[in-house]
């Protein structure tokens, strides 16, 4: 029972304080598109962030520990290993 939370914009686009309250410790947070620019600012939402690798590299962003880069195969698998997804 865990939720996949997908973000596609820098965190300033969201009401992050409110959303942070809806993310549980076993939930997954995936950053795609322009959300990749500000990985550090997303740390408040999860200890480990999942990042779509090709979106990050197109933006000249390096993914480092404890975060993890995913390809599309991983992205599909992630939607199946979580109970439901929310695209914020």
């Amino acid at each position, binding site marked *: 029972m865990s939720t996949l939370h997908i973000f596609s914009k820098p965190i300033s686009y969201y009401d992050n304080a409110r959303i942070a309250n809806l993310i549980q410790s076993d939930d997954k947070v995936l950053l*795609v*598109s322009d959300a990749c620019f500000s990985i550090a600012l997303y740390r408040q939402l999860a200890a480990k962030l999942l990042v779509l690798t090709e979106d990050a590299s197109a933006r000249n962003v390096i993914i480092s520990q404890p975060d993890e880069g995913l390809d*599309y195969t991983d992205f*599909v698998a992630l939607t199946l290993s979580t109970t*439901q*997804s929310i695209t914020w």
Partner: protein
Amino acid sequence: MARFVLSLHSAPSDHDTTQRLYKFATACLQQGHSIDAIFLYQQGVYHASESINLATDELAINSLWQELHQHGINLILCVTAAEKRGLNIATPNVFTVAGLAEFAMLASEADKWVQFK
């Protein structure tokens, strides 16, 4: 193997979301999953406009839809959302015009619904 429905909520000018939806859909199929429908909702309905014709250095949006269509994926344009947004639904090319009810039924039977925006 799982059954997916996907929905697209942003306009064709959001090229980045469009290419992500396409790649996700392709990856689903490659892993043997099925996609019961891709649904154009909210600003996504403008993807069914007949005139999308971008320069050669831009994302080839029409080709992406054509390819998903050739994979046999049901590409559904929400008639309610389209009419509210002034879209001419007479000539939706690779898209099928349908009501929300049809989509909701497909969504209820699917294992996963992933939104793209």
